[in-house]
């Protein structure tokens, strides 16, 4: 039993937790921006698949790693533009459109993969981002390596959270994004285009989701597999609710979930087959449901979430 407890104090456990959290952080921030602007983006799962592929493929074709990240972001933004166009000016159901985007983006990705790489049986590898130890900070025991001996994309995830929080709460465009998710007519009445703000937010959010996908192919692993996103997008949607639509809280949620995930893998090894491993696989999901029930019941969601805005209607 003490063994199970000691895991929590090993550096490798926390390193893994932060690594698992990184794609979730990108995806959660992306979804949070969309929802703060009043648009639910269920396209997240597919957008992550597309980002994972285009980022990786860019590098495979000889591109720079950061070029790969940029291409992934642009891929996400394009799917965001499509989702935004369908749900904002056309006012289509955000649920149906989002699921459609997920199906479209993932199928299109697999199709493209097969077209571009018809001959391969095992997925080709790239040289991914390497961990970079931040001097001094990474020498702190346990937390040092966990937080500061990671790949540059993880550092970008930290910066993203700070940037999203800063923009949402401290800049005019952030106020406009939050207002458009609360009461679009307030934005319209102040002479700002609701359509522009919403589509812009969905594009920016989708770009972040795609970077989250790219993290998996370009930082966590070194090639692209089918089904590698494996529900991380859906988890991000739950994390946004868990975080009550606040970047800081959502970050904590992402790290918590990732820690559960890292913990269950290690716990499996200790118990050595007495308990079926599926129980452990289930654990992070069960715990996130429990956490949602406890934390999110009183969450104040953006008032205009999922409500299309038509100019001139009241």
């Amino acid at each position, binding site marked *: 039993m003490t063994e199970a407890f000691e895991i929590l104090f090993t550096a490798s456990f926390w390193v893994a937790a932060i690594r698992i959290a990184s794609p979730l952080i990108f995806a959660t921030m992306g979804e949070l921006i969309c929802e703060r602007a009043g648009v639910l983006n269920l396209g997240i799962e597919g957008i992550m698949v597309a980002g994972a592929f285009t980022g990786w493929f860019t590098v495979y074709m000889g591109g720079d790693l950061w070029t790969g990240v940029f291409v992934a972001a642009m891929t996400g933004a394009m799917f965001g533009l499509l989702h935004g166009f369908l749900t904002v000016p056309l006012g289509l159901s955000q649920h149906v459109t989002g699921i459609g985007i997920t199906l479209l983006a993932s199928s299109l990705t697999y199709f493209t993969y097969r077209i571009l790489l018809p001959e391969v049986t095992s997925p080709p590898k790239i040289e991914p981002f390497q961990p970079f130890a931040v001097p001094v900070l990474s020498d702190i025991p346990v937390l040092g390596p966990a937080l500061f001996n990671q790949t540059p994309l993880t550092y970008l995830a930290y910066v993203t959270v700070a940037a999203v929080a800063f923009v949402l709460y401290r800049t005019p465009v952030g106020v406009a994004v939050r207002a458009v998710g609360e009461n679009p*007519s307030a934005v319209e009445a*102040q002479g700002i285009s609701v359509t522009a703000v919403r589509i812009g937010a969905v594009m920016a959010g989708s770009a972040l989701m795609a970077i989250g996908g790219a993290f998996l192919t370009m930082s966590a692993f070194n090639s692209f597999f089918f089904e590698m996103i494996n529900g991380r997008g859906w988890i991000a949607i739950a994390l946004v609710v868990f975080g009550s639509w606040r970047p800081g809280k959502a970050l904590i949620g992402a790290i918590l979930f990732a820690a559960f995930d890292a913990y269950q893998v290690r716990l499996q090894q200790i118990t050595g087959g007495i308990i079926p491993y599926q129980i452990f696989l289930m654990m992070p999901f069960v715990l996130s449901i429990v956490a949602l029930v406890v934390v999110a019941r009183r969450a104040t969601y953006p008032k205009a979430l999922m409500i299309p805005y038509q100019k001139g209607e009241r």
Partner: protein
Amino acid sequence: MDHAEGPEAEIVLRLAGMTKRFGPLVANDAISLSLARGEVVALLGENGAGKTTLMNILFGHYTADEGQIEAFGKALPPGDPNAALAAGIGMVHQHFTLADQMTVLENIVLGTRPLWSFNLGKAEARRRIRELATGYGLDVDPDRMITELSVGERQRVEILKALYREARILILDEPTAVLTPMETDALFATLKKLVAAGLSVIFISHKLGEVQSVSDRVVVLRGGKLAGERVTSDATRRELAELMVGGQLPVNEIGPPTPGATLFELRGVATRTMGGAALKQVSMQLRGGEITGLAGISGNGQAALAALIAGTLEASEGNIIVHGETARHWSPRTALDKGLGRIPEDRHATGMIGDMSVAENVISEAYRSPRFSRFGFLDWTAAASFAGDIIKAYDVKCPSPEARVRLLSGGNMQKLILGRALDGNPDIILASQPTRGLDVGAVAYVHARLIEARDRGAAVLLISEDLDEIQTLSDRILVIHRGHLSKPSLRGELSVMELGELMAGHGVAEGAEHAA
């Protein structure tokens, strides 16, 4: 109030020949009006006369089919709220355009700075808001969240939003509809200060008293057309009313009540919340032959009370006593079985089903009765003839009992609901906002039917946010504030101001918390 009009006054706004059509409906028909510097023009008209449409065109929410707008001597491009804002036009909408989970300051600065900047300029904004607030009597803390504010404070935020953008023309759409009498007075005081500072105001209203006390000039709209224009001080109330209605104002006579036994009673009832305050320890009695009016500002528990009586909300404490017996289980069906006639607050949401026919709707509360069904099969002939009876008796304008209810006007839909509720002479009648959004003729009709029901011995509960309506119809008046009821007062016992005090929560029942 000093008058600024006259030939030499500077004209700041001119609307010429504004026409707007929505399909076959002409909402604005060649309306022209002008506004001078430092002037308050009241735009008077009934619901549906085209006032709000006209102002939405001016503000760029709609694009007019014909007509020009000129502000400060320059043509205003149509359909662009930004152009209206830039030209110095500010609008306070009837339904506030505020983001609730944000601060006052954030709502005010929204859109006043270039979107792509790293600075909200909060300190400077806070200073300017405080300055405007003290200058014009618009006291509100810039750092509070909108959700924490009262309706009156929210309206002040809306006005501040316009002033912050240096509006020179302020449009107020039915600004007093949601205010207590005291808040209304404070608003009028603010308007005087604004006009003294050289602003011009368009005040949209359908209430004659207000129009007379606040405006310099009155422009009357009727059925989308300009019905007349008067200098306020030269016009009588009656003259304005007739311009607005296009004929004699219908008047209902109400005789002294003959109170009977208590038919319905609540004892110490509490509920959970229901879009507004929850009820806390509410006791009330409804007597036969009497109209009991429930006054209060929207959101103070009226919705919970109406739902409780209709059986859609459960009481967490206390008893419901009907005809002297404690009701054990109170559901919508028992309520109807015990003789409740229900006129719901929202015709469209809980009153009628828009996509079903008139006949289907009128039997929807009684389809189980042997009158409309045999062995579980509906008797459509009986339903159609019942619908026909209501259409005839209540003068409902509709093509046939098969017509979809959605196609009916608000007034006709309400008559249909009245017919359904009052059929079979129920002895307890719950009328929530029965005249909201109706024109004067339909209002008078609804009132006459309620008075008729009272005179034949029914207990009527009238829930309304319109204090005039409450005072005209009620034999006894209760005031609700944050889920607490005041002591009942008899007709004419309390003045408007005294009722207003109760509505604001001064002196309502035990332990009512006071607003900060």
